[in-house]
């Protein structure tokens, strides 16, 4: 059952992005920036948590979930550490994903070469 929910939630979030791309000519970079910002705002308002309760990984895997993690991280850190948490919370909560992206990104760029499109 959680697979069906994740499929529907993840699919829906991607389908909305596809409509934005096709209808507004937003570039992929702008879509990602929009989604991460929107995710952080929804996370800050406490709305996104409900989507995760319903969709599980379907809500955390899209970049909206990354934005939500940033917001949740900040809120938790502010509660624990006060003002300094404003600056430490976001990246602390997402450190795993970002570090992995930087490291694997660099390593794979060393190993592999781009191929021309067919």
């Amino acid at each position, binding site marked *: 059952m959680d697979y069906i929910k994740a*499929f529907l939630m993840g699919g829906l979030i991607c389908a909305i992005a596809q409509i934005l791309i096709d209808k507004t000519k937003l570039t992929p970079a702008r879509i990602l920036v929009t989604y991460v910002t929107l995710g952080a*705002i929804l996370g800050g308002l406490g709305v996104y948590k409900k989507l995760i309760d319903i969709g599980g990984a379907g809500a955390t*895997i899209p970049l909206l979930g990354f934005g939500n993690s940033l917001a949740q991280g*900040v809120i938790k850190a502010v509660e624990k550490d006060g003002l300094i948490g404003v600056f430490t919370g976001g990246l602390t909560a997402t450190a*795993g994903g970002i570090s992995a992206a930087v490291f694997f990104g*660099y390593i794979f760029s060393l190993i592999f070469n781009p191929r021309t499109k067919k």
Partner: protein
Amino acid sequence: MERDVKKEQEYKNIAQKYEPKPALLKNIVMAFVVGGLISDIGQFFLNFYLSRGYSMQDANTLVSITMVFLGAFLTGIGVYDDIGKFAGAGSIVPITGFANSIVSPAMEFKREGFVFGAAAKMFTIAGPVIVYGVSTSIIIGLIYYFLK
């Protein structure tokens, strides 16, 4: 030459007439299916890590790391761009797409060197994502700090 706004508008109407429209329905269906499948792969790993006794938060972090690895690897072996061709947003929006946006310029620009080529260019898209994401989170944190 002065811009002739009326002429430009007239031309825009002509040009739009011949602009092939994106296959919207097909694109949406493909984005839905691929985005859903990638989410299910994430769900599989989430369930796996939870079953190994990790907390929800740790399991989610491990899922992110795993998915980033997969996205980066599929980009390296030259598969991710083939997926992206038919999946569109379905493979852009998941965190695997974030990894793709890092690895693809890094691979491409390493011929311009490992500092200003690969290492600098890998943040072409990831950089803005982190800038806007972190900045938004800090504003949210400030609001939360003063309102609570």
